[in-house]
């Protein structure tokens, strides 16, 4: 796993986050309390002199881990976050594609409409998934959340000044260039508070966090950020190997993203 220059990554992300706030009227960010979106909030604090200037949305299906809820309360207080909890319904009979698609995406649609958000900061990374690797830094979703991936607009250099079609919203991806190991190196360097589920407990830890229904931990003895970095240097498995959603069938991520999933 390639370790990139953290200062360079950091500056690019700060630029993109600032640009989003300059460019759009009503920006919000998704916050899953995972390592990536928490890192993004740390970057936003740097970009805006210690304060996250936009609301953060938790799509809450009610079945996240207790540690995740506790971490949410802890950091919201510590960083004075403007937290919006968007409740999504969970139906016991559906899982995976239908669960993330129907429940989470629907809840997101509702909250965007209600608050009239025109841009949404989402902390996806290119190295997570080959379909996410096809994304732009700023990417349009129409009012039905559709991602027109077969005809994405041009995006050159750091130019985000083109106009946006009205009616939909823009997904902003400030962490697109970061690798998993860069996130952990940055967490270490900046001492960013992190959800305890990432650290080993009884020989297991979560490498990628979803809800209790569809995330399974990996075997690991990594109890500290340093341990995790060391583990990632050696790993041959995929970051999202513990995510049921990705395994169901081919092209699940593509179908989910095309329909507006994050």
């Amino acid at each position, binding site marked *: 796993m*390639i*370790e*990139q*220059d953290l*200062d*360079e990554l*950091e*500056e690019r992300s*700060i*630029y993109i986050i*600032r*640009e989003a*706030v*300059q460019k759009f009227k009503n920006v919000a960010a998704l916050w899953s309390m995972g390592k990536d979106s928490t890192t993004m909030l740390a970057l936003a*604090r*740097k*970009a*805006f*002199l*210690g304060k996250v*200037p936009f609301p953060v949305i938790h799509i809450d299906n009610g079945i996240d881990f207790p540690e995740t809820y506790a971490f949410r309360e802890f950091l919201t207080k510590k960083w004075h976050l403007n937290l919006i909890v968007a409740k999504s319904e969970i139906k016991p009979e559906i899982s995976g594609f239908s669960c993330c698609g129907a429940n989470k995406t629907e809840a997101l649609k509702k909250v965007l409409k209600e608050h009239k958000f025109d841009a949404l900061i989402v902390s996806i990374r*290119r*190295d997570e*998934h*080959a*379909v996410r*690797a*096809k994304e*732009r830094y700023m990417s349009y979703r129409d009012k039905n959340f559709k991602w027109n*991936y*077969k005809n*994405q*607009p*041009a*995006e*050159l*250099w*750091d*130019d*985000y*000044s*083109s*106009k*946006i*079609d009205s009616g939909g919203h823009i997904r902003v991806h400030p962490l697109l260039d970061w*690798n998993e190991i860069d996130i952990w190196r940055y967490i270490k360097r900046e001492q960013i508070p992190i959800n305890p589920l990432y650290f080993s407990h009884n020989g297991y830890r979560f490498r990628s966090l979803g809800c209790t229904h569809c995330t399974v931990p990996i075997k690991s003895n990594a109890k500290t950020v340093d341990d995790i970095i060391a583990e990632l240097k050696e790993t*041959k*498995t*995929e970051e999202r*190997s513990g995510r049921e959603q990705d395994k169901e069938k*081919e*092209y699940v991520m*593509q179908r989910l993203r095309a329909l507006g999933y994050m």
Partner: protein
Amino acid sequence: MLVNKIVLIGDKDNGKSTTIGNLLILTKSISDARLNEAKKISMQLGRKFEPGFLLDSFFEERKNAMTIDTTRAELMYKNAAFEFIDVPGHKTLIKNMISGASYANVALLIVSAKKGEGVKAQTKRHVFITNMLGINKLIVAVNKMDTVGYSQEAFEAVKSKLGKFFEKAGMQNSNVVFIPISAYNQENLIKKSDKMKWYKGRPLLEELYQQVKQKTSDKSINGTIVLLQGTINKGSDKLIIGKVLNGSVKANSTMMQMPDRKKVKIRMLFVKGVRVKEAVRGENIAAEAIGGISSEPKGKILTDTNGVEVVKTGKEIKVRLLFAEKPYTKNMMMNFNNKSIACKLSRVQQVIDSATGNRLSKLKALCVVDSVLKLDEYIAYTEFSKLKELGEFALYSKNKFIGFGNIVE
């Protein structure tokens, strides 16, 4: 660690994605899960294993064995990190090609030696485009050598044909390295192929490694340039924000805002949320500024008080531009310094066919134009040859990407 960004260019079906796919496999940079997925899909589609499927992740790309949009993948070789940028070769997808290529610092041209393929319009056009994007390093891999019996003659034929084009297009080509490969069969990608003993050079990845190891003189100009992005609130105060593109900016210093030539005093200065005395190239700043700061600073430049010696200002500028599809003469928006400015062509000097390098008598789709661009308002800029970031722009019309260009003077 510094990541070298390599864009693969060339016509469709010449093997760009296959080359990257096999480089990832050979350097063990891909997980078993992703490799198995690509194998499984290849089988389902009734094809031999397609290494390109490691990049082409969309269902539609795989079904039609054709890259639609740009993507990137990383690998380590020896002590160097590479990011390979894959782009589509199809003429209709040129906006995606330009989008991907705009982030690269090296271009690797993949051109097929197979009968009926070879040096085509798109091959040459991609070279033209990367050249205009300021990518000065070009390496050529002559692919599909297996289909011509690994013959040196076929290799030389492609080499000579391309050489002629380079000359015609006015490119420096004497130091371009040509490497014969078979991407699918993994010949000459990392290990020297024993099927082409006549080739005395290095295999592909080794050549890339040697080339990126050579230090290029990082072009810089004298003086400070800060591109302003807007303002943010700090309590009840407004701070300006921007990015240092050149030189450095100091707290408690006087600077000049361009293009309006207003003196501005910078007091407190912040980088990454922390108060600093000085900010350097590449850093995003926030600053307390007093004086003639514009109410809409976006797109303006802060420079030293002898500003006119650092950046130029003007509303009629000489440019070279490329139209991605059909050409325009007016009703264009120039996206420059993160701002959109209305513009039109005036005094077209020459028109060049990007597919041949020939001069044309009038504008047409995908042509290169040397012209004066007339803008609706003054801008601060530098020549592209001096500072890339302040000399390149994209063109839009009705929110649609129509091309890009460089400021010549």
